[in-house]
Structure formats: structure tokens, C-alpha cells
């Protein structure tokens, strides 16, 4: 651990919060054992719901609360955490591996809680060999069932795919083929490299770099590298892009985020002095064990192997 290099660590009370996006790790339990996991410690108790509600009630301004885990659906009261977010008039997205969302009844349940936006991890797309190599589970069928259930209930859909060298470098194109097949036309595909935090399978030196991610997407998604790179510093929706990300629509001229097909390429590599992705980011925070808010990546690094 290189805590001495993390120069920008701080915590804020909910009233002082300045982060737009706040990660709420409502459980550290998981039903998968992915080879890339930034919080592999399973011994931490579930987040206290009442303390979470108190936290939400004290936040200054409306925030995007990212309900996350390990696997958030492993918390039996996941829907109650979601309801709490809406009760206090914040926004909510659920980040999930989707195994439980393969059951229509579970998708109905989270829809009933008010949730409309889901981030589904699709590291293997529809390829069981890729899932086995990255996530240690042949789960393509369940992932596709989850996709279908989410489409039926008209959820706003983000997908997440980690590109692992030598395994799934063809994933960007495979995602498009899958979405064509499943008639999924509105989606934000988040493509990233391996982050060297917690448990990971690719060292910094072997990792796919940001420029290579751009190249892979350009080659497989029928857009040019110049087109993708033109969005590097573009101001979209009144905000500049995050320094480690490139967000762009596949259809030129599309102005409506999450409508049509969008791609967000993110550099999760830790090839910098701090050893974390996107050091000094002021966009994403994380709820700490003490119900304060800390910068996401800095907090993960400070607590690596712990919380």
C-alpha cells in the first residue's frame, strides 16, 4: 500500500458533500468470485439501513447514489435502500452482476422500488469462455436473461466490460452483435481496462492502455479513432469529460445520453504516482464506514483489503 502517495485524501460530512456521484457499498457479500474486484473483503457487515437513511437525509443537494457492493442484490433489503434514495429525492443507479436479475420477479421488485437505471456488468458479453476466464463463472445465459428482463421493463441501461489482454479484446464488437441480436438500441457501454486495486489479474505493465482501448473500439464499432478522440475534452451536458474517460455516441450528432448507443471508455489503470485510477477526481465519492464521504479511489486505496 502506498498511502504516503495519496495526497488528496479527505472526508466530508454529508452536509459538506461536494461529490455528484456517491457510491454506497450496501453489502460486501457476493455471489461471484471475479478475478478483478476492487473490494474483495467479504467480512464487512452490511451497511446499516437506518444510518444510510440518516446520511441521505443530511446530504446537501441532489446526488446520484450508486448502489453497489460487492454484489448489492446479495443484501436482502436491497430494494429498501433504493426506496430510501428516492424518499430523500436523490437519484439512483444499481450496479450489479445481474445474476439475480435473471429472475423476472426480482427485476419487477426493483422496478417497484422506483429504480429505472441499472448498470450491468458484462465482462464476457455472451461468451462463457470469457466469463470463466475473467469472472470464474460460466454465466452468459443468466446475463442475457437479465438483459432481456431489463429491456422488458424499459430500464435505462449501462453495461460494464473490463478488457483483459489475451482474453476478451474482441468484446466491443461482440457487445454490438449481442445488442443487435437482442434489439437493444438504447445503452451506454462502459469499456475499461483492469484496475490494479484489491484483486486483479493484469499488472500495470501488461494492461491495455487508454489509447489501445480507443483503437479496439474504433476497429470494432465502425467509428474512427479521430472521432473518438474528438470527444476527449469535449464539453457534454454542461460538464467537461472526466480526465480518465471519453464519452461518445456511436451515431454522430446524437445529443441525448443513454438514448441510442453510447460508449464510455475509461482508464482504470493505476499507472500513475498515486497508484489509483483518476487521482484527485472530485466527481465520485464513497460512503465510509463512519458515514462520511471520501474521494472514491483514494478511499478504496487507503482501505485496500479492508472496507
Amino acid at each position, binding site marked *: 500500500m502506498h498511502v504516503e502517495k495519496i495526497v488528496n485524501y479527505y472526508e466530508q460530512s454529508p452536509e459538506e458533500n461536494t461529490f455528484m456521484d456517491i457510491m454506497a457499498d450496501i453489502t460486501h457479500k457476493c455471489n461471484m468470485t471475479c478475478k478483478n474486484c476492487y473490494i474483495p473483503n467479504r467480512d464487512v457487515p452490511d451497511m446499516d439501513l437506518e444510518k444510510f437513511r440518516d446520511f441521505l437525509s443530511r446530504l446537501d443537494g441532489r446526488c446520484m447514489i450508486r448502489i453497489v457492493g460487492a454484489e448489492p442484490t446479495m443484501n436482502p433489503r436491497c430494494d429498501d435502500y433504493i426506496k430510501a434514495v428516492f424518499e430523500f429525492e436523490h*437519484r439512483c443507479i444499481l450496479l450489479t452482476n445481474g445474476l439475480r436479475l435473471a429472475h423476472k420477479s426480482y427485476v419487477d421488485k426493483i422496478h417497484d422500488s422506483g429504480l*429505472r437505471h441499472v448498470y450491468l456488468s458484462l465482462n464476457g458479453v455472451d461468451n462463457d469462455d470469457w466469463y470463466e476466464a475473467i469472472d470464474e463463472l460460466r454465466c452468459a445465459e443468466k446475463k442475457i436473461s437479465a438483459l432481456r428482463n431489463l429491456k422488458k421493463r424499459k430500464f435505462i441501461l449501462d453495461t460494464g466490460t473490463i478488457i483483459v489482454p489475451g482474453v476478451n479484446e474482441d468484446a466491443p464488437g461482440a457487445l454490438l452483435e449481442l445488442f443487435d441480436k437482442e434489439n437493444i438500441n*438504447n445503452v451506454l457501454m462502459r469499456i475499461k481496462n483492469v484496475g490494479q486495486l484489491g484483486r486483479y489479474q493484469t499488472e500495470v505493465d501488461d494492461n491495455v492502455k487508454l489509447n489501445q482501448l480507443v483503437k479496439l473500439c474504433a476497429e470494432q464499432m465502425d467509428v474512427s479513432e479521430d472521432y473518438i478522440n474528438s470527444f476527449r475534452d469535449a464539453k457534454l451536458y454542461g460538464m467537461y469529460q472526466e480526465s480518465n474517460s471519453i464519452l461518445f455516441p456511436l451515431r454522430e450528432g446524437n445529443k441525448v445520453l443513454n*438514448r441510442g448507443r453510447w460508449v464510455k471508455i475509461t482508464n482504470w489503470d493505476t499507472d500513475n504516482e498515486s497508484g489509483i485510477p483518476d487521482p484527485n477526481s472530485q466527481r465520485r465519492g464513497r460512503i465510509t464506514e463512519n458515514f462520511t464521504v471520501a474521494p472514491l479511489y483514494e478511499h478504496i486505496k487507503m482501505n485496500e483489503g479492508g472496507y
Partner: protein
Amino acid sequence: MSKTRNAIKKIAIDRLSIELTDEIIDSGKAFKDIGVDSLDAIELVVSVEDELDIELSDERLDDIENIKQLADYLAEFD
């Protein structure tokens, strides 16, 4: 009162906690000036489609910059 305009108002208050009066809608103010950002806007669109069982055109949506334009487009489905 049009069915689609009522749907926008209901969804704005239920989902976004934003009260949209006819005056606000007809003012032609940009989304951001009434507290609706890009994610709110897509949630509004998706929820309206779901509620009214309609499908809006991506190309038409590209040209919509304020709540009045959205309301006018939706009125075509009344």
C-alpha cells in the same frame, strides 16, 4: 388538458421532484434552467414512453432543447 402534458407533469413530480406548471412548460426555458439535467431528461423520456406506451424518435429527440419542445412533440400522440 392533454394526456401527454399531464403525463409529463406527473412523472416530473414523481420521479424528479420537479413541479412543472403549464406556465413553466410554455416558457420555453432550457432543461437545465428548470433543474433538469441530461440524466433527468432521459428518465423523463423513458418514463413517458413507458407510461403512454409510445416510442419517440431518436432523431426528433436530438432537436429538443427544452420542456416545451418535448411537450409539443408528445402532443402529437394525444
